[in-house]
């Protein structure tokens, strides 16, 4: 079809129709994009909410378990470790603070106990007595680490507690059994309390 005076109006009408048709198809494409964009968004939100609920439950279980572990705090041996009284005192304070739910203060006390003990270890030499002493202080560090994990649980930060507990569970530490039990109790969906 050529364009001349006679058919100009017809060509213009066709151009109007084609323009409207194209705009319609573009809106159809946009609708589709929105539809396909919304589906993954809803799915992601659903998955996220499932994880949020799971996280909440784990945090609650961790808190309960930590409270259970700390029940015996009042009967802790206050004698402490020989030669590192300040560190021992900080550790005992931390335990009491965890028991009372003063988690920030407990974290500071645990950091203090850790630093003091590490400094003491770094001053030791290679004599037999120093080696024995190092072993004793390393068990103090282990105590500090254990209480750190418990403090994380008590402050509802189970993600931070998990690697520490796992490390204990995989080791030959005195806390291995306790850590494995806590992992099972807090993170296993099949766990049923006795």
């Amino acid at each position, binding site marked *: 079809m050529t*364009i001349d005076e006679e058919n100009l109006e017809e060509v213009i009408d066709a*151009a109007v*129709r*084609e323009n409207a048709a194209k705009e319609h*198809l573009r809106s159809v494409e946009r609708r589709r994009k929105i539809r396909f964009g919304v589906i993954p968004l809803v799915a992601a939100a659903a998955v996220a909410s499932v994880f949020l609920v799971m996280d909440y439950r784990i945090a609650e279980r961790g808190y309960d378990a930590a409270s259970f572990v700390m029940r015996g705090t009042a009967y802790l041996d206050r004698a402490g470790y020989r030669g590192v009284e300040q560190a021992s005192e900080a550790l005992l304070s931390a335990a009491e603070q965890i028991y009372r739910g003063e988690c920030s203060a407990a974290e500071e006390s645990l950091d203090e106990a850790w630093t003091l003990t590490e400094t003491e270890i770094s001053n030791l030499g290679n004599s037999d007595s120093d080696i024995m002493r190092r072993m004793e202080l390393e068990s103090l560090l282990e105590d500090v680490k254990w209480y750190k994990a418990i403090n994380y649980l008590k402050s509802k930060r189970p993600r931070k507690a998990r690697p520490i507990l796992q490390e204990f569970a995989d080791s030959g530490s005195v806390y291995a059994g306790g850590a494995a039990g806590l992992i099972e109790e807090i993170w296993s969906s099949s766990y049923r309390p006795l």
Partner: protein
Amino acid sequence: MSDSDIITGIAGGDKRTFEDLYWRHRRPFVSYLRHSQGVSTEDALDIYQDACAALHNNIVTGRLTPESLEGATLKTYLFAVGTKILFNRRRKKQTDILFDTEAALKTGETLADDDPDHQERLAVIRMCVRQMKSPCKELLSLRLWTGLSSAEIAARMNYSSDRSAITQVSKCRQKLITYVKSQLKGYDNR
């Protein structure tokens, strides 16, 4: 749904049928242009929409009927129109391409449509249409694309009577024709 049903549906103003046709061939068409002609997905989609719009216009104006397909399918028709649009776009950029003349002829267009001057004039008209402002854009679309009656347009656009709608559509159409003529005159005087 057969090609014949699709043509009948679109001719009767059924937009759903038009959308169904659009989705049915969209992916193969875009894939075809991408792989055989090296066109980007975005450009292929734009060409496909132009082809669908042209097909729609040919159906509602009665240029394309089930009989005029002469045994070819709507898909072939659509692909031929699309290839032709691509050809015209590339020619505008003075790029050589392989062109399936036989397929293009099946679209029912004449060779005059491939005339560069014709294409330029068409481009001027399309530009004028795109530049239309509200309410003329809506009015002419409702009349020529949606196919609403004067009463329906009056109701949609809140006009007092059918008569007002008819007057407004007529005024807008005349305004567009005058504008197109002035632009074509400018093009011819270049």
